[in-house]
């Protein structure tokens, strides 16, 4: 694991910190959004904020899979899990996310629903094969990183003729969310550039970010999830801003190419299609921002197979998750932060996942007054 250590080398970090301090112009405020929760987590865990000068500010983005799922979707998962003979599988974090009236999949499980946390779609498939008498639904969430494994599971299920496996598809698209943040208008947050996603970009390639540099004039630097990756990306962003440039650069060349993973993209195209619109927590309804299951796989689409009826979702009004996800507020701007809302008793999705901005700030950064980091 020597490889990893190199990306956490203290001397390299100090060198980068010096370069950032030297090149960031004192008369300028730099506001960079790290899109991904993985970056948010790395920044908080390694105390990267302490190595940046005060005029270089990181704004946490919405790239946390469970965070962007609105309350209504959690309610749908709970309702699905409650159907007779149903086994609902999903990724672990989702179990703790509060839905309407603080209900959650964890609580549904305590009431007797069969809810399983899985580490991969293959586990869900296996549960379906092992339990032919039960209906097994995989509640799929996540950005482009988790989409290909879902596509693989669907093609396998069809090839095997599984009659008891379906997917409830909630896969969402990174570029659509970035666009929504930049289109935020008056209510939006000012951003001078993006630290672009690591794993997501390995799938979709750097080409997917061209609109942000070309149409919006915002620099984008794709970065790995190690702390030095983030610092290197920040330095590259500062250089672009100083030079008045806006291009897509790739710091994470060890995993990301221009085209991305073409095979995964082709598979995704055959199994999914664009949804007209999808409701995001914090960002609202965004057209063409999510995937649904292609007609060719209709038999494996939980949305078509199971009719569920959920009442209008009730958001927790006091939870500022939506604003936190857009970068408009910091976790400490939320009145519930640390008083009623902690990782042991999360009031909102951003406090559940380790990638969520509230959880990261609570766990690693809350000794700092004022919510920096």
């Amino acid at each position: 694991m020597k490889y990893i250590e190199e990306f956490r080398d203290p001397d390299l970090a100090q060198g980068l910190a010096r370069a950032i301090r030297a090149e960031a112009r004192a008369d300028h405020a730099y506001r960079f959004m790290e899109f991904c929760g993985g970056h948010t987590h790395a920044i908080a865990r390694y105390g990267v904020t302490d190595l940046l000068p005060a005029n270089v500010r990181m704004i946490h983005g919405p790239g946390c899979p469970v965070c962007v799922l609105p309350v209504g979707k959690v309610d749908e998962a709970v309702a699905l899990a409650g159907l007779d003979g149903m086994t609902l599988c999903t990724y672990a974090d989702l179990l703790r996310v509060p839905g309407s009236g603080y209900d959650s999949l964890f609580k549904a499980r305590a009431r007797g629903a069969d809810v399983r946390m899985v580490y991969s779609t293959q586990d869900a498939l296996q549960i379906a094969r092992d339990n032919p008498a039960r209906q097994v639904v995989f509640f799929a969430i996540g950005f482009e990183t988790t989409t290909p494994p879902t596509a693989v599971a669907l093609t396998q299920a069809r090839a095997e003729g599984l009659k008891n496996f379906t997917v409830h598809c909630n896969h969402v698209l990174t570029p659509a969310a970035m666009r929504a943040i930049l289109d935020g208008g008056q209510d939006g947050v000012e951003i001078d550039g993006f630290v672009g996603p690591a794993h997501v970009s390995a799938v979709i390639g750097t080409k997917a970010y061209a609109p942000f540099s070309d149409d919006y004039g915002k620099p984008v630097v794709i970065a790995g999830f190690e702390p030095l990756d983030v610092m290197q990306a920040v330095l590259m962003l500062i250089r672009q801003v100083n030079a008045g440039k806006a291009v897509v650069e790739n710091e994470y060349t060890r995993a990301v190419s221009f085209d991305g993973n073409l095979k995964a993209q082709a598979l995704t195209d055959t199994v999914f299609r664009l949804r007209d619109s999808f409701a995001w927590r914090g960002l609202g309804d965004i057209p063409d921002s999510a995937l649904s299951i292609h007609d060719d796989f209709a038999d494996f689409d939980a949305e078509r197979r199971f009719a569920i009826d959920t009442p209008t979702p009730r958001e927790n009004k006091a939870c500022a998750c939506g604003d936190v996800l857009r970068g408009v507020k910091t976790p400490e701007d939320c009145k519930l932060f640390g008083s009623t809302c902690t990782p042991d008793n999360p009031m909102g999705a951003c406090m559940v996942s380790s990638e969520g901005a509230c959880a990261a700030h609570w766990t690693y950064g809350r000794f700092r007054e004022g919510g920096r980091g």
Partner: protein
Amino acid sequence: MMGMDLQNGRVEMGHGAGGRAMARLIGQLFVEAFDNPILRREHDAAVFDLPPGRVVMSTDTFVISPLFFPGGDIGSLAVHGTVNDIAMAGAVPKYLTAGFVLEEGFPLADLARIVDSMARAARDAGVEIVTGDTKVVERGHGDGVYINTAGVGVVADGVDIAGDRARPGDRVLISGTLGDHGVAVMSKRENLGFGTDLVSDSAALNGLVADMLAACPGIRVLRDPTRGGLAATLNEIAQQSGVGIELMEDAIPVRGAVKSACELLGLDPLYVANEGKLIAICADQDAGRLLAVMRAHERGGDAHIIGSVLADQRRFVRMKTRLGGTRMVDWISGEQLPRIC
């Protein structure tokens, strides 16, 4: 005496029913292995004298999967755990009790291995197992074996060790590498899919503590960072003492194999369990001497000074990261789970 088949036999409901089968199990297995004069009297209660000083008492119940892991088993762990709890009060552990909950069908050969390992661990630690109890539960109602141990020890006058005694300016020491036990056990669980040569650090620490107290009777806090790891232990101390603690990530010893496994599983060594390590807090001027004594002991060869106690009303534990930043080291919340982003 009519023997039990210790090679191929299995635990039966009768082994806990109070009849002849139970007497045989106790006589042939437990008394034989733990043999000492107090136990041999076969009273329901052990009667013994204690040397002068205040009496310390502790109990712990051990539930672990797998029962046998690299570097130990549930038996040695049950002895070390209670011995260490008593030692962390600055006391000399003397006597233990052992309670077994056995699952019907459990192989007697495995039970014999566990009992032998307990006996060896007790002998090595200089304590005697003086009374015990056995119950059998129906198949499917237990994980093979659960063991409870309780123990008594004696603390010398003048020694005052407690979690509320850390003071700003004190130093924090650790007796060796973090996370060995937790990672060694996890590596043997099914479906985690990684191999390692790591062995658990499970060990009795009363010998180390005796040397430390002889050199530095003024030690303020001793704790063994078991469940919840170093992070949980230091947060408890910060709470109880009403202070903050600052760690230096650079100074905390972690084996390469533990680092890699944690990387792979998305865990943090600060939260992983240890069964043969202690942390000590002492006044700044004592720290150098204490460190030297710890390093001279076989259980403290990798000892380090890893941080300091600060005045902080919020009672935060924080850490200077290797990169030069600072972060909180919080209590663990829920389980540590791999990320999906």
